[in-house]
């Protein structure tokens, strides 16, 4: 069940990334580009977490995940601020 939710999270993040990118191509609003990157990083963060849980990655991912979280939030912030 947990795995199913993880996969759904990744798929949703990628779908939102696609929508943001399409919006960027239509409008060239900088905010849409920041959102595209934010959703991409969010999906990547989830992939890293799943990999660590299933022991594909053996080392500590704490720093990577924390950094990605900060980056995602920073990009959301930029999307609101630098439209």
């Amino acid at each position, binding site marked *: 069940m947990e795995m199913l939710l993880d996969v759904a999270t990744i798929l949703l993040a990628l779908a939102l990334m*696609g*929508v*943001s990118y*399409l*919006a960027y191509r*239509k*409008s*060239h*609003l*900088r*905010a*849409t580009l920041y*959102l595209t990157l934010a959703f991409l990083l969010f999906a990547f963060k989830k992939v890293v977490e799943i990999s660590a849980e299933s022991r594909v990655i053996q080392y500590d991912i704490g720093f990577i995940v924390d950094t990605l979280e900060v980056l995602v939030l920073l990009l959301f912030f930029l*999307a*609101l601020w630098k*439209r």
Partner: protein
Amino acid sequence: MERRNEILNYIRNRPGVTFRELARELKLGIGDLQYHLGKLEKEGKVFSRKVGRRRYIFPAGFEEEAQRLLMAISTETRRKILLLLMEGEMNQGEIAEKLGVSQPTISYHMRELEKLGVVKARREGKSVVYSTNYDPETLVRLIKEYRPGLWERLADSLIDLLAGMGEGE
């Protein structure tokens, strides 16, 4: 050959015609039309652009204009604005009210439409009124045939949401 010239003339007279409309108006079979259009494209006499779920066909030499036009009708709000302006000149407040969209969203789209040269602005007293600056028949035809997919509709909502939060870019 005569058939092909007929197709070419039709496209020249109605730039932005869709494949479906062309087949219907000229009473041509899909395969037949595909064959002639393929030949015309190879000869560089026509070109096509896919936007939404429709493919629009333009005569050669129309590249820049086609780009501008398709960009202008690429979001739902812009299509609504253009159709509204065909009824007559309007200022941003009136457009926002009639469409039920926030003023910053309208402001963003008007700026983009003006940049694309599809709309022109004129100062009238304290307000600025807008009118279409392109052949209305072509605009209506392109807009009427436009069929956005689900992803496009979601992207349009996102654009309006972001543009509505402030002055946009």
